[in-house]
């Protein structure tokens, strides 16, 4: 099946029971699959009038007790940004799939890219932390979107699922697990008298209709949910706690794939589909007698600082093939002192393995 379908089935295995979306290439198959399967599982599919409404509806549905998701691509992801910030501020668990396509603007609508890395991190205004995961195969899409749901519940926050058009549309064989073997993180529910918007790092949540008469707002608020938009200390405490619940757990949230060689002086760091030609380039290098390290970030945000720092210390040069003009490279540079060499590829085609390897060879003087 396609990655777009696999993300839908992963969501269903994770317990997703509400999906709101708007058609967009290359993410439409996810909406189609959800519309096909949700009525069979007692869940609800709704096609909204735009992506802003889709994002708004999944947040509303989460407060109504749903496990919710939407799926889109770059232009729709841009439209969702304000409501994503609302999700962060109100600490609403939900999953946003962005099947990245070539931009900016309409760009190459049917072609893949990885140009939304920094938009996922900084797209909505204000100080916030975000969790974003990036898969590199159809099977991993299925597995990782379940993690996306679990993280959104564990940290009570929106989670971005950063696919790319290539992984969204590629067809690969997948074997579903026994649903009973799928581990899901249960929502931490509030008891009467609990603080719903403060206190512990991740406060418990209550849903509408449970008698709490809760006040949920995107304005700065106190622990009881009531607005206080003038006190410096209230805003600072709220935002530091919301940021801290993610950044303090950076290493716990970090998921990477590593192939390290003790003799290697050169390394690759990649995400998503770019990792696939990079793995071939790694083999080519080994065959030529150049051992290299390979690090793939499944967790893109919060950025796996420790992993990247460690790799930086054992590398003379880090090569970063990515389908944009250097968004990942820039982040790696912030945490390493070795040379970071960006291998960009834009225009809707992924890197060739030899193309990557030739650039590596040139840089190490072979």
């Amino acid at each position, binding site marked *: 099946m396609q990655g777009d379908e696999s993300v839908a089935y992963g969501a269903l295995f994770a317990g997703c029971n*509400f999906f*709101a979306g708007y058609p967009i290439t290359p993410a439409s198959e996810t909406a189609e699959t959800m519309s096909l399967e949700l*009525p*069979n599982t*007692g869940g*609800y599919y*709704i096609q*909204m*009038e*735009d992506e*802003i*409404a*889709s994002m*708004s*509806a*999944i*947040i*509303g*549905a*989460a*407060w*109504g*007790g*749903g496990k*919710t998701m939407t799926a889109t691509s770059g232009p729709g992801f841009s439209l969702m940004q*304000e*409501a994503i910030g*609302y999700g962060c501020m109100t600490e609403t668990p939900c999953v946003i799939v962005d099947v990245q396509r070539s931009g900016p603007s309409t760009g190459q609508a049917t072609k893949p890219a990885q140009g939304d890395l920094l938009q996922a991190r900084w797209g909505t205004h204000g100080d916030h932390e975000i969790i974003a995961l990036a898969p590199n195969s159809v099977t991993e899409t299925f597995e990782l979107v379940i993690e996306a749901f679990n993280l959104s519940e564990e940290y009570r926050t929106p989670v971005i699922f950063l696919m790319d058009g290539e992984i969204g549309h590629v067809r690969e064989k997948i074997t579903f697990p026994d649903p009973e073997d799928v581990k899901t993180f249960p929502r931490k529910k509030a008891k009467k008298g609990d603080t719903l918007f403060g206190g512990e790092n991740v406060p418990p949540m209550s849903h*509408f*209709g449970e*008698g*709490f*008469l*809760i*006040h*949920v*707002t*995107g*304005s700065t608020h106190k622990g009881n949910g*009531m*607005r206080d938009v003038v006190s410096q200390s209230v805003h600072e405490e709220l935002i530091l706690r919301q940021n801290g619940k993610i950044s303090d757990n950076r290493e716990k949230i970090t998921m990477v794939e590593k192939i390290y060689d003790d003799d290697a002086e050169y390394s690759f760091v990649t995400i998503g589909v770019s990792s696939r030609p990079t793995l071939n380039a790694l083999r080519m290098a080994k065959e030529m007698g150049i051992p290299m390290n390979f690090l793939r970030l499944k967790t893109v945000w919060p950025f796996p600082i420790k992993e990247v720092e460690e790799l930086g210390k054992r590398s003379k040069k880090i090569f970063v093939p990515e389908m944009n003009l250097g968004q990942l490279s820039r982040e790696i540079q912030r945490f390493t002192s070795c040379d970071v060499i960006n291998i960009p590829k834009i225009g809707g085609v992924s890197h060739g393995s030899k193309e990557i390897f030739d650039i590596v060879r040139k840089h190490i003087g072979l």
Partner: protein
Amino acid sequence: MRPEGLKLIRKEIFPTIFCSGCGGGTVLNAFIEAVLNTGIKQEEMVMVTGIGCSSWIPSPYFKADTLHTTHGRAIAFATGVKVMKPDMKVVVIAGDGDVAGIGGNHLIHAARRNINLTVFMVNNYIYGMTGGQVSPTTPFGSRTTTTPYSNVEYPMKAAELVAAAGASFSARWTTYNIVQLIKGMQKALTKKGFSFIEIISQCPVGFGKNVGMRTAIDFLKYFKSQTVPIKKAQKMKPDEIEDKIVIGTLVDRDRREFTDNLLDLNERRMKELGL
């Protein structure tokens, strides 16, 4: 307000932020009266609002589960809430800038789906919270802070728009027609399907300052003189009602609503799958 109404408000937050003479208090009072009259319990209600003065009418003052959302998107958020909580009474109270302006598309599509939401759009003719700028409902020729020479756009007739889009119930009243407004609210709250009331309300501070109506009384007198019941309006020529406020129920029909349709679909699939 009747003493029973006190349990429906978050008293601890009073006094309200509303300016002197604002229609927001009248709308809140009418809403509380309507809720009491229908017997709907506050534990069964979800209030969803957007951004602007009118969104403050229910949030934080009305005591129920409350989702105070982004500007213009209250109806979209409410759609998600309603689908997951079809047995709860989901009510949007927000302003004209919110509902008819930035969120106009959500209004049309919610009415088209005929989803069982109640929307009270408080139309004070301007963007009040930001200082009195022109809105999609500002009368032609009016001065506002962004139409200092006069408004050269025609106003949106929101109640007619909602009726045409497929809603079960659409009406328009003013803060002058308080008895009819309360009855209309009761009707809207109990009607299955998308129910909508455009409530023409006064803003002496944000709008009145630019149009020579500095008190609530000025506005209420204006509403009294300008309102025309819908039956009478139907007999008038278009140019005769151009500047009038047509009041009454524009549509009240039984039409299956969206969450019922959604539940039917699921039930049908369960049967087909033998579950």
